[in-house]
């Protein structure tokens, strides 16, 4: 009897923790570091926020190319996905680049990489928070 109760309760608990893990991952993507903050991993939360913030600020300051959904080829689409990885910081980068991108110099090219790295890093951090919320070693 006790065994039957345990097996009935366990899937419900698993489902709840899985939903929580998705919420943590989504929060971490939307606001860099928020996923880890929800798990009370304060150091990692601050570092994720600052890392994405610095990369976006520097990338936009160097007038890197911030891709949009109106790309011409597959590379533009990949760049857009990478840039979207920054979550809400995508809008910050757009509003920082008042004069638009300038990739005619090396600075702008570096800026493009900084922006893409910020997005990919944030996706990695969100995945890390997701795994931690599921109880995996993190």
């Amino acid at each position, binding site marked *: 009897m006790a065994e039957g109760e345990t097996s009935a309760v366990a899937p419900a608990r698993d489902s709840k923790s899985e939903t929580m893990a998705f919420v943590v991952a989504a929060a971490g993507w939307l606001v860099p570091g928020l996923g880890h903050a929800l798990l009370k991993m304060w*150091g*990692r939360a601050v*570092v*994720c926020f600052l*890392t994405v913030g*610095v*990369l976006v*600020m*520097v990338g*936009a*300051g*160097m*007038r890197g190319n911030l891709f949009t959904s109106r790309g011409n080829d597959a590379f533009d689409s990949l760049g857009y996905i990478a840039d979207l990885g920054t979550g809400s910081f995508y*809008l*910050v980068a*757009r*509003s*920082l*680049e*008042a*004069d638009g991108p300038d990739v005619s110099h*090396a*600075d702008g090219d*570096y800026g493009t*990489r*900084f922006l893409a*790295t910020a997005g990919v*890093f944030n996706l*990695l*951090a969100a995945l*890390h928070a997701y795994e931690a919320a599921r109880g995996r070693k993190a």
Partner: protein
Amino acid sequence: MMAHLPSIALKLSHLQALVLFALVIAIAFGFLGRRQPIERLKYILWTLLLFLLIGVGIGWAMYPFSH
């Protein structure tokens, strides 16, 4: 219509951009990848060193093709 924040203009040399990128990413990887402070520090220093060595190494490897 999106409101624009005051824009910042940055002019960095190749080496400055490389060092800044390596430092930021090394710290981030160290915090995500390790738990103990001493382990983090070792990981950060090691990652930073590799980033710089490989970056400068690739730069020198490409040098002959720039002429």
